[in-house]
């Protein structure tokens, strides 16, 4: 594949809508990714380090929202990037590195969750300062109790508990779309399914969550 073709493929792979979350992709990122991937394939660890820095936050966030456990997310994120490095020689550039490493992380996480079945233990990260000032969240909790931080923490716990009740694929779709802001197309590429499947899974997952969290959504 020529570099122009590779760049076109990568560009199209990264053209996805960004509904609400901040998924800002640097304009030159695809080209840089190709160069960095080539360097890493030749054994340049510094190039791979740059790729890790570029995507570590998104990969970590996905795994964390899937597991609701910081320690598990830390381990799985590291393992995904290590696996990515060892499998880099088999990376042909048919998809973007971003989609490819996402797929590795997602598969690792789903396998981990299947093995861990019925042994879910939440180890939640703290909410950042902005949570208390988010107008949407304020509207959700302000009429319940004057102690907003305590109420937010309770809400966070309930929300994560409800997420864990979903199946792995439904949780993944909600995480990628409603939390991380990926488009249906991008999710389809990561999950290796068509857009219709993504949409129906998302609808079902939202319905389930709405039922679990009905007390907080009135």
């Amino acid at each position, binding site marked *: 594949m020529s570099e122009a073709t590779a760049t076109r493929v990568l560009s199209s792979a990264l053209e996805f809508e960004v509904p609400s979350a901040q998924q800002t992709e640097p304009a030159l990122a695809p080209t840089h990714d190709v160069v960095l991937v080539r360097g890493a394939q030749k054994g340049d660890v510094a190039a791979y380090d740059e790729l890790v820095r570029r995507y570590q936050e998104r990969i*970590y966030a996905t795994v964390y929202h899937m597991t609701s456990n910081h320690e598990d997310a830390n381990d799985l994120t590291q393992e995904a990037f*290590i696996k990515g490095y060892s499998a880099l020689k088999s990376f042909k550039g048919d998809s973007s590195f971003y989609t490819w490493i996402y797929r590795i992380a997602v598969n690792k996480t789903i396998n981990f969750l299947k093995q861990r079945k019925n042994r879910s233990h939440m180890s939640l990260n703290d909410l950042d300062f902005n949570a208390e000032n988010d107008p949407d969240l304020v509207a959700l909790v302000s009429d319940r109790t004057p102690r907003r931080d305590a109420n937010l923490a309770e809400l966070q716990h309930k929300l994560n508990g409800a997420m864990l009740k979903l199946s792995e694929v439904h949780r993944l779709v909600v*995480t990628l779309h409603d939390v991380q802001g990926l488009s249906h197309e991008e999710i389809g590429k990561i999950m290796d399914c068509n857009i219709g499947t993504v949409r129906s899974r998302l609808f079902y997952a939202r319905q389930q969550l709405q039922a679990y969290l009905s007390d907080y959504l009135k």
Partner: protein
Amino acid sequence: MNAQPENFDRLKKLLALKRHEQPPPGYFENLSSRIIDRIEQEREIAQLPFWRRFTLSFDLKPAMVCATGVLVCGLLSAGVITSLQVSNTAVAAVPSQMIINGQPATEPGMPPTAPEEVQSSIEPVLSTVSSPSPFDQQISLRVQRVNYGFGN
């Protein structure tokens, strides 16, 4: 399927809470260096010879020590059990007519044999089995000195 986005508005706002869940401060500053350290460590290990990697796995994976211990114990147990089974087979191979009232029966004219000699597993087992062949009966073997001289 009537997926109406407005139906999930409040849910989407609630899900936005998860975006505010952040790992401890400074977590991402060290994450990539930890990953690269592990990658380089694995590259070094991959270059070691097999036996060195095997012994190193004891340090990296305590479960390997347990697994190896269990394997060694299993092999030892299997060896002991097998040797006991061989002994029992040797005893069982002694014909019942050879042991009468706890004393080994002997051929007429032969000196009595001590029980431990008959039951010993190191004695040839097949030699004690009576053969149905008529040629084996009443045959007494005698050792004779034979001299071969030259120039007869």
